[in-house]
């Protein structure tokens, strides 16, 4: 699943220092569980995103381990503290070794 993976992240454009913001992330991925069978009864091999991390200026916000029970197009919502202006970096790790990354700038208001 190297093609068609599109991360989408919602982060406010600016915040006051020390503010708590809500971040929502979604990435398009089929998250094949390894439990399903195709028409011939063969098991479709597992292919999921197994880890997601969010960092702000190199400091960890959240680190999630994903199992096959996470829905197609994994969605996460969580809260972060913004101590200064900087960049949020979001990383998804695929079973097949691919890494999907996206970053969002946030300014102080």
């Amino acid at each position, binding site marked *: 699943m190297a093609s068609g993976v599109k991360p989408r992240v919602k982060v406010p454009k600016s915040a006051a220092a020390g503010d708590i913001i809500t971040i929502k992330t979604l990435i398009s991925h089929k998250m094949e569980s390894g439990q399903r069978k195709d028409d011939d009864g063969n098991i479709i091999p597992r292919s999921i995103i197994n880890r997601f991390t969010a960092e702000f200026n190199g400091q960890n916000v959240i680190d999630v*381990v994903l199992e096959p029970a996470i829905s197609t197009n994994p969605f996460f919502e969580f809260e972060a503290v913004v101590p200064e202006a900087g960049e949020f970096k979001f990383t998804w790790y695929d079973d097949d070794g691919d890494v999907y990354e996206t970053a969002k700038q946030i300014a102080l208001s």
Partner: protein
Amino acid sequence: MDLTRRNFIALGSGTFALATMSALPAFANLTDDAIAELTGGAALGEGGVTLNAPEIAENGNTVPIGVDAPGAVEISLYADGNPVPNVATFRFGPLSASRSASTRIRLAKTQNVVAVAKMEDGSFQMAKAEVKVTIGGCGG
């Protein structure tokens, strides 16, 4: 389908069968094993974790679940009726504002969703919620 008296009774007994099935010890043990692996057999307290789950999920493929456990360093989610009970583990970093997160999960059938939080002092707290699923989410 017309909801005749006969159909209604059939439907009722079907639901009952499902309810008994979800109480099968095999699945519960898998979850208990997974939790024991996390906690190392430590006692589980209750009340420190809030688990937000719908009472009824029409589609088991995407069930919104939210957890909130003030003072937790790590929250793990389990579904005791899925083929694999582990669902996700959230580890909170220094810039995490609240020890809460939401996601969407798959549930194969009506079952309990369990959240176990590892607190800063090393103790464990848990919360449990039953979700009724009308269409399961594991394919097959």
